[in-house]
C-alpha cells in the first residue's frame, strides 16, 4: 500500500514536471534538453521536489582589491599542449574576470532542512577533460555515485591523482587519448585532484548528496535552481580565499539573489579540504537565525 502511494506521488510529480517543461519550452532550450535527457536516464527515481512550489538562488561572486598576478605555466616541454593555447597559459589558482568577478568558486547548499532526507536522482555522467594540459573544468560539483568521465584529449601521459580525505582516492594513468570513469560514494567538499606529470595541473571536485551546486563562471555568475521553499545555508568555496556562507530564504516561485564577496586580503585564508557535508547538522542555520 505504501509503495503504491509512492508510485502515485511520483506519477503526479512526473506529470507536473512534464507539464511545466512544456510550459517553459523555448525559454531555455538547452536547459530543458539537458534535464529531459537526465530524466530519461534516471528512470529509477524522479526528482522529489515539487517544481510548482520551488524557488531558485542566483547570484555572483564579487572580487575586491587587485587581482594577484598568476605565474605563467611553462609548457615548453609539451608542445602539443602549448599549441592549444592562444596566449600564455596561466596558473588557475585565482581567475578574476574582466568584470571584476571571481571565477571557479564552488557555491553549494551546505544545510537546509527542506531537503533533509530527500533522495535525488543521480544525474548522468559529468565530464572532466584534460585539454591543453589543464583540467576543464578546474572546479566542478557532482552528486554521490555520479559517474565522472575523465577524458584525456591531449594524447600524452597524464595521471589523475585524487586525494580525498573522507573516502578512498585513486591514482590513474592515461598515457593516450582515452576515457576512464570514476565516482565518489561519500559527500566531501572539496576533493583535490592533481596530475603529477604536469605539476601545475590541479582540479577540485565537490561531492554532494543533492544537486544544488554551481561554480561561478566567466562572468562570476552561479545559480541553484528548483529548491524547495525554506531556509538554506549556502557556502561559497575558493581554493585560495577559503569559504563564506550566507543564510538564504527561498520562497515558492521566488528567486533569491545572493552576492558573495572575496577580496585579495583573504589570500591567507584557511581553505577547508575534505569537509564532510552533513545536512542534518543545523548548528549554522540556528546560529545565524
Amino acid at each position, binding site marked *: 500500500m505504501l509503495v503504491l502511494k509512492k508510485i502515485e506521488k511520483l506519477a503526479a510529480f512526473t506529470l507536473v514536471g512534464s507539464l511545466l517543461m512544456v510550459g517553459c519550452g523555448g525559454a531555455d532550450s538547452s536547459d530543458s534538453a539537458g534535464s529531459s535527457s537526465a530524466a530519461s536516464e534516471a528512470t529509477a527515481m524522479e526528482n522529489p521536489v515539487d517544481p510548482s512550489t520551488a524557488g531558485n538562488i542566483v547570484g555572483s561572486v564579487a572580487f575586491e582589491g587587485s587581482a594577484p598576478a598568476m605565474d605563467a605555466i611553462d609548457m615548453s616541454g609539451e608542445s602539443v599542449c602549448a599549441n592549444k593555447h592562444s596566449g600564455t597559459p596561466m596558473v588557475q589558482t585565482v581567475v578574476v574576470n574582466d568584470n571584476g568577478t571571481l571565477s571557479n568558486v564552488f557555491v553549494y547548499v551546505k544545510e537546509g532542512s527542506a531537503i533533509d532526507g530527500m533522495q535525488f536522482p543521480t544525474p548522468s555522467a559529468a565530464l572532466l577533460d584534460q585539454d591543453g594540459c589543464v583540467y576543464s573544468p578546474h572546479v566542478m560539483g557532482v552528486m554521490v555515485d555520479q559517474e565522472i568521465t575523465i577524458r584525456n584529449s591531449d594524447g600524452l601521459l597524464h*595521471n589523475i591523482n585524487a586525494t580525498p580525505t573522507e573516502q578512498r582516492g585513486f*591514482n590513474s594513468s592515461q598515457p*593516450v587519448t582515452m576515457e576512464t570513469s570514476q565516482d565518489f560514494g561519500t559527500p566531501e567538499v572539496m576533493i583535490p585532484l592533481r596530475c*603529477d606529470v604536469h605539476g601545475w595541473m590541479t582540479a577540485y571536485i565537490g561531492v554532494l548528496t543533492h544537486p544544488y551546486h554551481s561554480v561561478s563562471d566567466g562572468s562570476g555568475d552561479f545559480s541553484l535552481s528548483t529548491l524547495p521553499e525554506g531556509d538554506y545555508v549556502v557556502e561559497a568555496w575558493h581554493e585560495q580565499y577559503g569559504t563564506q556562507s550566507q543564510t538564504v530564504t527561498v520562497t515558492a516561485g521566488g528567486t533569491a539573489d545572493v552576492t558573495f564577496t572575496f577580496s585579495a586580503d583573504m589570500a591567507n585564508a584557511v581553505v577547508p579540504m575534505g569537509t564532510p557535508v552533513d545536512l542534518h547538522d543545523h548548528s549554522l542555520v540556528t546560529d545565524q537565525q
Partner: protein
Amino acid sequence: MDTIRIMLLVLTVMTIPLRLDALQEDDLGKVTYDRWCSECHGVDGSGNGSAAGFMLPRPRNFTLAQYQIRTTASGDLPTDQNMLDAINNGAPGTAMPAWDDLLSEPEKQALVQYLKTFSRFFPDDEVPQSLDFGGSTRTSEEVVAEGRRQYEAIECWKCHGDQGRGDGESSPTLVDDTGFPAAAADLTENWFFNGGDDVEDIYRAIRTGLDGTPMPNFSDVLDAGVITEEELWAVAHYVRSLSPEEVPGISEVVQARLIEDLDVPRSVADEIWNETEGVYIPLVGQIIVQPRWFNPRVDGVWVKAFHNGEDISVMVRWSDPNNSPDQAWSDWKSQVVTTMEPKEGGDTGIGASPDQLVVQFPMQMPEGMERPYFLKGDSRRPVYLWEWKSDRQTALEGEARGVGTESFQAEGQDLSVEGVHKDGQWQVVFTRPLLTEDENDLDFITGEAIPMSFFAWDGDNGESGNQGALSSWYFLMLEEATPTAVYVAPPLAMLLAGALGLLMVRNAQKREKENI
C-alpha cells in the same frame, strides 16, 4: 547452596584465561607498535614520530590507510598479507628496516591488526581483494625490446627518464600526497625498489601504482584496452633489465687493470671502460659531525680503474638526475632543505651548489692494517684528496687532517679530470701519474692494497659541506706487471715434458722390438 557457589566459582575461573588471552592479543599489537614503530610512525599512527623529521620519504601515516605496496586496486585497502610483507621486507631505500627476523610471527600478526585500528577505513567485514596479474611471461631479448617500446609509448620516461635513472622532465616537481618531495625511482638500482626487486614486484607496482606517491596504476589503462597484459609484463621485464642481473655484492677491492703499451683512458667516452664491470660501493649520509645529512641523493658509486705503469685512471659513475645547479630543480632544493631536520646550520637552500665528488686516500701508505680516520683523517694520519666539482673544469688535489681542515693545492696539479653528465648519470674520470714529485701526494705502487673511499654531493638536493654522502674505506689494487719468468717457465716445462714423453715412447718401442 554450596553447589551453586562452587559452580559459579568454576565458571568464573574458566572464563579468566579466555579473557586474558583476548587481552593479550590486543595488547601484543599495541605493545609491539609502541616499542618498535612509534618512534617514527608516531604513537597515534599519524606518521609524525619524533624521528620523522629526519626522513624523506616521511614514515607512513596509518590514519590515511594509504599503502604503497598492494596487490589490490589503486585506492583499495591492502590485504593482511600485503601489510605483513611490508613489515617483513621493509622499504629498501628508506629508513624502514626489514622486520623479518626481528619480530616473532605472533607479534607481526598482532601488529597488522593493530595498524588497522588507526584508520576508520578498515571495515570489519570487507576483505580487500587482490587483482589477478596473470602469470609472468618469460623474458627474452624480444620481450625486453617490446618493453622498451611500451616504456616509450606509455611515457614512463616522463618521470623515470629515458634510461630510467629518475631524471625525467617531471621529476623535479614530484611530491607525495602530503606535499613532501618524492623522487622518481632510479630504475637502474632494483635493490632499492620499494616493494621488491624482481619482475613480479615491478609488475605489481605498475598495475596497482604506489598509492600516496605520484606513481599511478596502469590497471585502468589495461581495462580500457589501451595496452595488453603481455605488453605491461614486457614493461616490467624491460625495467628489470635496467638493473644488473644480480644485486652487486660487496667487493672490497677495485682492481686497476694493467694495460701495457697503451695510454690510460682519460676520457669518459674511451671504449676500454666497457671492458670491465666495475665495483659498486654503497654510500650513506654523513651523520657523524654537524651539520649532519639524513637525505643523501647518491646512494652508491660504481668504480673502475686502469693503469699502464706510468699513469692511473679511475672512473667513478653514479646516478644523479641533474647537473647542479639547475634552475628546474631550485624549488626541489628549497623544499628538501626546509623539509629535512635537523637544521644544524647547513645549506639554507638559497644560492647554487654544484655536484661534487671527493676520492680519499691516505697521505702515506699505512703500515699494517691501520687506516686514517675515514672522515678526512686526523693529525696523526692525514689523508690525500681528489676533488671534482660540476661547476669547474679541473680537479684539485688536497689534503686534510680532520673534517674542516681540507686544503687544496692551487698549483702544481698532477691530476686531470673529465666529468660528463648524461641521462641522469655522472661519469667522472680522474687521471694522475703513479708517482709525483709532491711529497703530500700518495704514490701509487702496484700490488699494494691502497685504501680508498668516496664522498659525493648532489647540490640541487641541498647538499654541500658536511651534508652529503660518504663510504667507508675500500681498496684500490694496481695490477702488477707479469714477471718475465712467467713467459719463460711454462714453455720450458712444456718442452721438457714433450721430450720426456718422446723418450718414453722410444723406449717402449725398443722393448717391443726386442720382445719379438
